[in-house]
């Protein structure tokens, strides 16, 4: 039943896409498209939720389509249901936002048809139960989002972003194709049921896992496969950016989980080392890059890279525990990862919505040209602040819960037998802590430079609050962030069937614990209670404020800025974003991405302006992608000579080839 409804949703999305082609130009077109998408996503959302709550055996469905002799298979088990939940929630909330935001779109026909198609693709990936359907959905998703990235194709750099995106997406798909080729074998048993049926040899399983890591990881944005992400995500319209960062990366993670935990039934412990290393590197590098950005949407995109890294740390731990069959810690790690999947989709969508509101209100994405928006757009500011706090893993919001659970899983690692893991995991934990702290710094910068301080440009000065739909979307998400933060137990229990299906174990039931606190493994080990923390915070804060206002004074006087007695009226002397991140750039930058700083300070009395240049290199570009691209061009230049030979030379080619083949025949037998 859920599979059928899911497929109907996909069909519905496609119909809406076709409809959008027709009515896109009409003023009502945007409203109708997003409204319909909202309704369909909501349907899918409810279906997924029901399927998750009443976990009956997985609903399957087979159609005589797709791969010949195999057909198209669809299946909604707990895992698929959970990710359908994530996808459709993201889709619904983005549609709500789009109801408002879509009205500002100058060329709607470049967005409206692809938006529902994009949602359809993501749904299809999660529904698919055979390799072909899976990859069709996967690539369809890439194509639709590519079209959306190129929606504003005249903006400088977008074409390049689209190109890099689609090429890396294609390469990733081919990697997944190789994975399935390995798992399905030469006879091509591509139905997932078949693959589950006959387990693969260890070597095949390992290579398949690593290929899947590359294939799905490139879409999820693992370092060093992340380079397309910070280019493509910001290029798209903001609600699409939210979908790409908040949802599509999760679909990629779904793909990895599906392959690594469902299709490949055995885990090899040392693969977890690789995944942990990559995850940790991704988390730290991602947030470091994010700190260096001026463009707020690009900052958010890089922070997506970071969060993907955190999720993969959780997955790596799961594999480690699973390989040493420790089901309960495995369940803990997996729950942490999945919970972070959900949380990140919540606050990242929220943040991109906020960025979109700012972009629409000021026409600026460069934080250095913003500032003081908290006065102009207070509601957006509040919602955005919530998102910032959540993504910085601050209690009592949701980001903290999943990272806390990850830490708890890390703290179990000493029970692992392998010494390499014993040493690896604490290091990963330290890196995770580093990432969390840097994320806090990053979002202090994001919010502080964008919304606080004084407006740096007229554009920022004349900003206005955004529309009701956008605000509604943002506040719903903010509320979800808080709820997920204080009632994580409910979510963990919701995830129990998913996790149980994947690792064959489960965390202790949470909702029965007193005071609604959560316990990863045992009460004696550790526990956390968001509600009580929240209540305490509110009580103590409000109490103190009341006491002071009541018994001391509440008198307040407005005056000019003091600033140690030397206030500087000019707006540009505020602390800028780049100067905010300068210390961290100094500390980490020189080693991680060799930062080149050049200061050109005029001598005292000289009347010219001083200059300060910063150059930041992404090592991935320097050492991997740049050389690769150049190599391709060089080779094509070398080959290109063959276009201009004389006929005689071409004949010579034929002749030589013929002679070689003849020699082969002569030599044979």
């Amino acid at each position: 039943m859920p599979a059928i409804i899911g497929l109907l949703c996909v069909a519905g999305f496609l119909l809406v896409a076709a409809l959008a082609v027709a009515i896109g130009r009409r003023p009502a077109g945007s409203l109708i498209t997003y409204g319909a998408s909202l309704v369909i996503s909501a349907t899918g959302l409810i279906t997924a939720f029901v399927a998750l709550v009443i976990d009956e055996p997985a609903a399957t469905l087979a159609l005589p389509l797709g791969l010949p002799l195999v057909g198209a298979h669809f299946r909604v088990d707990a895992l698929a249901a959970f990710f359908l939940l994530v996808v459709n929630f993201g889709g619904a909330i983005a549609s709500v936002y789009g109801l408002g935001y879509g009205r500002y779109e100058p060329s709607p026909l470049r967005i409206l048809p692809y938006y529902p198609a994009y949602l359809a693709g993501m749904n299809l990936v999660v529904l698919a139960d055979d390799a072909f359907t899976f990859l069709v959905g996967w690539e369809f998703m890439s194509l639709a989002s590519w079209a959306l990235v190129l929606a504003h194709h005249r903006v400088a750099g977008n074409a390049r972003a689209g190109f890099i995106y689609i090429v890396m997406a294609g390469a990733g798909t081919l990697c997944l194709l190789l994975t399935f080729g390995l798992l399905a074998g030469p006879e091509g048993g591509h139905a997932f049921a078949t693959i589950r049926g006959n387990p693969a040899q260890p070597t095949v399983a390992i290579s398949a896992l690593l290929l899947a890591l590359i294939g799905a990881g490139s879409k999820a944005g693992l370092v060093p496969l992340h380079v397309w992400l910070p280019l493509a995500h910001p290029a798209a319209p903001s609600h699409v950016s939210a979908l790409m960062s908040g949802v599509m990366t999760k679909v990629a993670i779904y793909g990895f989980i599906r392959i690594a935990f469902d299709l490949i039934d055995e885990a090899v412990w040392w693969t977890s080392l690789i995944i942990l290393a990559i995850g940790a590197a991704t988390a730290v590098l991602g947030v470091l890059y994010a700190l260096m950005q001026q463009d707020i949407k690009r900052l958010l995109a890089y922070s997506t890279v970071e969060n993907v890294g955190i999720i993969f740390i959780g997955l790596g731990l799961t594999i480690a525990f699973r390989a040493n069959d420790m089901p309960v810690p495995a369940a803990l790690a997996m729950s942490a990862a999945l919970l972070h999947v959900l949380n990140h989709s919540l606050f990242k969508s929220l943040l991109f919505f906020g960025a979109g509101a700012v972009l629409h209100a000021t026409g600026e994405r460069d934080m250095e040209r913003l500032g003081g928006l908290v006065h102009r757009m207070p509601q957006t500011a509040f919602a955005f602040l919530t998102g910032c706090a959540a993504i910085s893993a601050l209690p009592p919001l949701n980001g903290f819960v999943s990272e806390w659970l990850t830490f708890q899983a890390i703290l179990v690692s000493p029970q692992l037998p392998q010494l390499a893991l014993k040493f690896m995991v604490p290091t990963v934990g330290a890196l995770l802590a580093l990432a969390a702290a840097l994320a806090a710094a990053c979002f202090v910068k994001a919010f502080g430079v964008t919304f606080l301080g004084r407006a740096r440009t007229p554009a920022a000065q004349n900003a206005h609050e955004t529309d009701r739909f956008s605000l509604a979307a943002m506040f719903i998400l903010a509320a979800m962030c808080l709820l997920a933060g204080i009632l994580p137990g409910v979510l963990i229990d919701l995830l129990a069937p998913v996790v149980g299906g994947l690792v064959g174990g489960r965390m202790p039931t949470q909702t029965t614990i007193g005071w609604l606190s959560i316990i990863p493994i045992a009460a004696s080990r550790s526990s956390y209670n968001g509600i009580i923390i929240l209540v305490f915070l509110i009580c103590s804060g409000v109490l103190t404020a009341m006491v002071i206002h009541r018994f001391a004074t509440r008198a307040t006087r407005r005056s000019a800025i003091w600033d140690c007695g030397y206030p500087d009226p000019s707006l540009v002397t505020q602390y800028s974003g780049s100067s905010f991140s300068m210390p961290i750039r100094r500390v980490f930058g020189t080693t991680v991405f060799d930062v080149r700083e050049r200061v050109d300070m005029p001598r005292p009395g000289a009347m010219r302006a001083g200059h300060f240049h910063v150059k930041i290199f992404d090592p991935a570009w320097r050492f991997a992608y740049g050389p690769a691209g150049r190599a391709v061009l060089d080779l094509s230049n070398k080959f290109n000579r063959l276009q201009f030979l004389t006929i005689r030379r071409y004949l010579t080619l034929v002749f030589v080839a013929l002679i070689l083949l003849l020699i082969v025949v002569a030599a044979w037998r």
Partner: protein
Amino acid sequence: MAMMFEVAAQGLQMFLVLVIAPLMLGLTRKVKARLLRRLGPPVLQPYRDLWKLMHKEAVLAHNASWMYRVAPYLLFATTWVAAALIPTYSTGLIFSWSADIIAIVALLATGRFALALAGMDVGTAFGGIGSSREMLIASLAEPAMLLVVFAVALIAGTTQLSAIADHMIHGSVGLRVSLGLALFAFVFIAVAENARIPIDNPATHLELTMVHEAMVLEYSGRHLAMIEAAAALKLTLYFSLLVCLFFPFGMATADKSLAAMALGVASYAAKVAILAVLLPIGETAVAKMRVFRYPIFLGSAFATAALAVFLLFVSQGF
């Protein structure tokens, strides 16, 4: 009835830390002044300061937003709650399980987040400097802190503070080199987090050196009072955290009789007093560092903590 008693016990701890916090501050200042051959302010001076600040009117910049006004209370609340959740005189208090050590560190991070934003709210250069450096220090300190937690949690098998304390008191921990290393690292972190010399100087307003003070430069009146109180609470919090992790002896554990409680309170007071004396002695021994030498300072803490963890694997390969 038992319920009432438990809640009362928790409340006692909550107010105990709140009450002694300024005293700790005053004590350190006094000792420091004496070491510098100064007479120094009376030990109770911080109370007077707070009282006075609370009654002054708060002066806000014209463009200060609600963020600016909420931040001090948020900071105070988070610090206070965090401090209240650390076992001081007794383990196993009723709410002790609502946050483990990681959550407590994170709570402090929440406060820091609010304060750093407040520093950037008015849009001055100093506020920015302060916030940016504060976040730098935090980003360097937190990994080290996590490794310390890891070492302790490995020994005690839990991150639940009162459980750790229990384990340290009863369990056959003995003297571990790892614990020593962890303690060393923890002290470094505590110094950095509380903006003490050599990382920061609470007594200076010299532009280039200040971190914490730069953030709160614009504050005045009751808001400043909140921030000062929060600073004092944070100091006390780290004292009692250190006590709880490494020297929990004398806490009331199993028997919750009044006598045990009283003993616990007394031992706690004595221990924090000793710490409040030791801190300024250490501070006067060293000089303030340049900002870009922080990584070395905290990096050493990180290395030590890591060593502590790895030695545990070697000594008792789990």
